[in-house]
């Protein structure tokens, strides 16, 4: 029997369907029109296979795909045109690379015959995307579509996940080929799951069994490996207190007795101070980012370091490991746990309390339960966390809003934090929250933004309006680029070089987009207004009028050791 002959665009639709794609974030344009034409038939009627979410800017398509991927664990997909459509996604791609987020970006391209002629809307996408992708490939023939798409998804989701770019010239979209579905589940030059070295497991277990003051660092690798339960068993068996990285915040429930808070520049005081006291430091699926280590030459020098990671290139990259355990922590954690003695480190755990008490007294209580003065970011987060009972997904933008909401939000469930950690992309929050609302439609999505970051993606109010995406936008408005303002106060003698910002009338904007809006100025209204937001179906925009010059503390100043963390800033 002869095989069915179809266009490259049709092959793309079928290949995406075969990979389990249900939602696509995209924006049409000249060089991707044949694909959008094929998509038309598959987004409605009996043949419906996909929901296509029309964003208002291609960068938002990439961030939405990230948000979708982070909460669902599936690959996020975006579909854009060539040239500027493609380059607009680059920030999201770089962000996904930094934060190990599986997305596949499919971009139109001029026909193969026009490549290199500076044709209209031509850019060497593979060339510019290569350094910031796990894989970038140009599909030049329709018969390569099935293979390339399957390979793209396999690479994006396997091992340490990451972004993949498929550059799809127009001739390959239009030309026909025989339809041959292909499933790629092996690439010979790529080893996503390194073999587990039993001697490394034994060495790690031996060190942990001998430890008097063990300390674990929990990263996003635990979420990516779906090893949340294995983590808890590991920590509980050997009684190891654990700090969580920004991206690993929901890998361990925030009310777990062994949790001691967030790591990093604005993390918990105890987590930072005790890093310099522990005798064995166990890093699990984290990469020793400079925001976590502070000055690396002084970081945990007294400790033996065990580093569990799936990516061999992370070992000894930033911090030297005494024992490197390569592999998926879903497997390596239980392998180590099976060799661990049940242990009790009560005295060591209790010693954290001194620092917790200091932080509670100087930072947390005044931050979440102030009694006078303007609204503070911490109290807003605290109320939202209480009203949502730790069940919501936290999406945030970048800056003070990100640090505060990450510090004070509560997490009961896995995959509940969507943040731009490594790349620090302002404008990430709103589109990522839209994506998250499609990736986890049953969950409440709380999106904390500052006035700077919100305006970098404010066009996405259009997407929210059109899709009725149930995103709860909490704007912490201090009329400042607050984090830079804080650094200007600390390091530049308070010279506010372009950090004060004139804001639009947000209520008018909400009205124009038909998104319910409320404003909190008085502390006494905060809880009822948050409750109203959470109980209102669909999108909601809650503007909070925040103290203009609130600082984020505690803080480890850039280039300083983690035990130099400050509870108060003096400038």
């Amino acid at each position, binding site marked *: 029997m002869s095989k069915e002959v179809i266009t490259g665009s049709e092959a793309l639709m079928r290949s995406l369907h075969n990979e389990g794609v249900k939602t696509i974030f995209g924006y049409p344009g000249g060089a991707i029109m044949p694909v959008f034409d094929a998509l038309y038939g598959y987004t409605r009627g009996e043949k419906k296979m996909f929901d296509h979410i029309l964003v208002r800017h291609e960068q938002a398509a990439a961030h939405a795909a990230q948000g979708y991927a982070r909460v669902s664990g599936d690959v996020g997909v975006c579909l854009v045109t060539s040239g500027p459509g493609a380059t607009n996604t680059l920030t999201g791609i770089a962000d996904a690379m930094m934060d190990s987020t599986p997305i596949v970006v499919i971009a139109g391209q001029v026909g193969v015959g026009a490549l290199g002629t500076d044709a209209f809307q031509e850019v060497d996408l*593979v*060339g510019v995307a*290569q*350094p910031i992708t*796990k*894989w*970038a490939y140009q599909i030049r023939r329709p018969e390569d579509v099935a293979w390339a798409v399957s390979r793209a998804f396999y*690479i994006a989701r396997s091992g340490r996940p990451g972004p993949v770019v498929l550059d799809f010239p127009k001739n390959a979209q239009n030309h026909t080929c025989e339809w041959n579905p292909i499933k790629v589940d*092996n*690439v*010979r*030059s*790529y080893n996503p799951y390194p073999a587990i070295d039993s001697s490394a497991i034994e060495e790690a277990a031996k060190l942990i069994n001998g430890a008097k003051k063990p300390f674990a660092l929990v990263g996003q690798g635990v979420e990516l490996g779906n090893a949340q339960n294995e983590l808890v068993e590991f920590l509980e068996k050997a009684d190891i207190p654990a700090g969580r990285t920004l991206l690993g915040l929901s890998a361990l429930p925030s009310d777990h007795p062994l949790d001691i808070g967030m790591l990093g520049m604005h993390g918990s005081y105890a987590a930072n101070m005790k890093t310099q006291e522990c005798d064995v430091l166990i890093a699990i699926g984290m990469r020793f980012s400079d925001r976590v280590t502070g000055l690396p030459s002084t970081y945990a020098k007294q400790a033996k370091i065990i580093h569990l990671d799936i*990516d*061999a*290139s992370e*070992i*000894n*990259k930033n911090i030297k490991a005494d024992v490197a355990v390569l592999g998926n922590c879903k497997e390596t954690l239980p392998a180590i746990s099976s060799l661990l003695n049940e242990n009790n480190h009560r005295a060591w755990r209790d010693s954290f309390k001194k620092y917790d008490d200091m932080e509670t007294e100087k930072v947390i209580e005044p931050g979440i339960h102030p009694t006078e003065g303007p609204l503070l970011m911490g109290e807003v987060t605290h109320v939202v966390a209480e009203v949502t009972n730790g069940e919501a997904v936290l999406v945030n933008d970048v800056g003070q809003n990100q640090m505060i909401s990450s510090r004070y939000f509560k997490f009961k469930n896995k995959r509940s934090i969507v943040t731009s950690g490594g790349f620090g992309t302002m404008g990430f929050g709103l589109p990522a929250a839209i994506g998250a609302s499609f990736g986890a439609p049953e969950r409440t999505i709380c999106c904390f933004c500052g006035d700077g970051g919100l305006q970098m993606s404010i066009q996405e109010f259009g997407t929210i309006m059109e899709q009725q995406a149930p995103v709860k936008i909490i704007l912490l408005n201090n009329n400042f680029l607050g984090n830079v303002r804080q650094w200007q106060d600390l390091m530049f003698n308070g010279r506010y070089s372009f950090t004060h910002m004139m804001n639009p009338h947000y209520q008018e904007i909400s009205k124009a987009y038909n998104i319910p809006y409320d404003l909190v100025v008085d502390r006494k209204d905060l809880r009822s207004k948050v409750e109203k937001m959470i109980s209102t179906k669909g999108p909601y925009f809650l503007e909070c009028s925040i103290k203009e010059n609130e600082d984020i503390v505690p803080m480890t100043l850039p280039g300083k050791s983690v035990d130099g963390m400050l509870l108060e800033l003096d400038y």
Partner: protein
Amino acid sequence: MEKKLYTLLVYSENIAGILNQITAVFTRRQVNIESLNVSASSILNVHKYTITAWSDEEQINKITKAIEKKIDVVKADYYTDEQLFIHEVALFKISTPVLLDNPEVSRTIRRHDARMMEVNHTYSTVLLAGLTEDIADLFNKLNDFKCLLQYTRSGRIAVTRSFDEPISDFLHEQESKDND
């Protein structure tokens, strides 16, 4: 840490754009590539890159891992000179009148085991295959004789002291996985 000349041997699939990805790893860290040679390997569809760069071991280790992480790179390893059999090729274009005038020039060429490839009235071409130091030595001498018109040197090529390609075992393993 002490800087040394390291040689990287990188094996990749035969797919367009890989050289760009490999050199970008050096560019990002502002490490100069001293020499680069790309050729087929003894294994079908596997290409081999021989790259030299001055670096310390910590940095070259990170660079090697970052290269090996590229999806279509099969394997990357770094070596010091004593771990490899190394060769380079150089071509020297020299002035024939000086060559005829000064008998030391041809003696020097012979002493280096270099070969005369072409001689005409105006210029002669000399080929030398050997180690980096031999080539540098001949270059310096010919330069001193003031007869050098043009000079070029190939990138280093190298084979390891292991029996077959360092990736042969790896590829066999991968193939047996495919057959499972």
